[in-house]
């Protein structure tokens, strides 16, 4: 699947999107997997309460299933308007 990062999550990880081959069942499983990769991932995902996630461009909770998901995006709380 494609994993996208925005705002300071993008900056901390150092790239805007990447292809991830994962069998993670839920968003939280994917987060754990990414955390284990490198320090910059661990730093970006240190505090889940400071993050929001969208699966296939819909805002969801971290316990959402990734079954069939094509795109997962991580970002801080939005500041539009």
């Amino acid at each position, binding site marked *: 699947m494609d994993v996208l990062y925005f705002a300071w999550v993008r900056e901390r990880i150092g790239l805007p999107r990447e292809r991830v081959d994962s069998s993670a069942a839920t968003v939280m499983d994917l987060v754990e997997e990414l955390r284990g990769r490198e320090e910059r991932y661990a730093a970006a995902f240190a505090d889940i309460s400071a993050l929001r996630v969208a699966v296939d461009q*819909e805002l969801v909770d971290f316990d959402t299933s990734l079954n069939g998901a094509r795109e997962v*995006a991580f970002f*801080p*709380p*939005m*500041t539009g308007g």
Partner: protein
Amino acid sequence: MRVVVQDSPFDLGVETEKFAQGCSASGAIVTFTGVVRDVAGGLEVMEIEHYPGMTQSALEEIATQAVSRWSLEDALVIHRHGPLRVGEMIMMVATAARHRKDAFEAAEFLMDYLKSRAPFWKREVTSDGAAWVEAKAADEDALDRW
């Protein structure tokens, strides 16, 4: 209903007039416009990042909700992204309803959702460096009333 996401400026006067002309059955038209403000002092540019694949559909969903919940004749959302200077308009919403209460409420609803649910992130660049604008607890709380 019209939802526009763009990096170029929009003309508030033209958009407001056009919206109003299109709403012949409404007695009440409300607009809200958000403008870049130099909060801390020394703001050189405000950069607005967004999530291209999601922004348009998220805004359309919010606008559709507003139209159905308050029986609006029409609704308009324009939101910019990219670099903006102090005084530039960031976004606008417009609502048209029979009665003023509905037009006001729908516009406030749209704004509350845009603030916390539309995939935009603001970054302020000053002479001291750059910082992401933090989401306010008050903005998240504002959603509870709807």
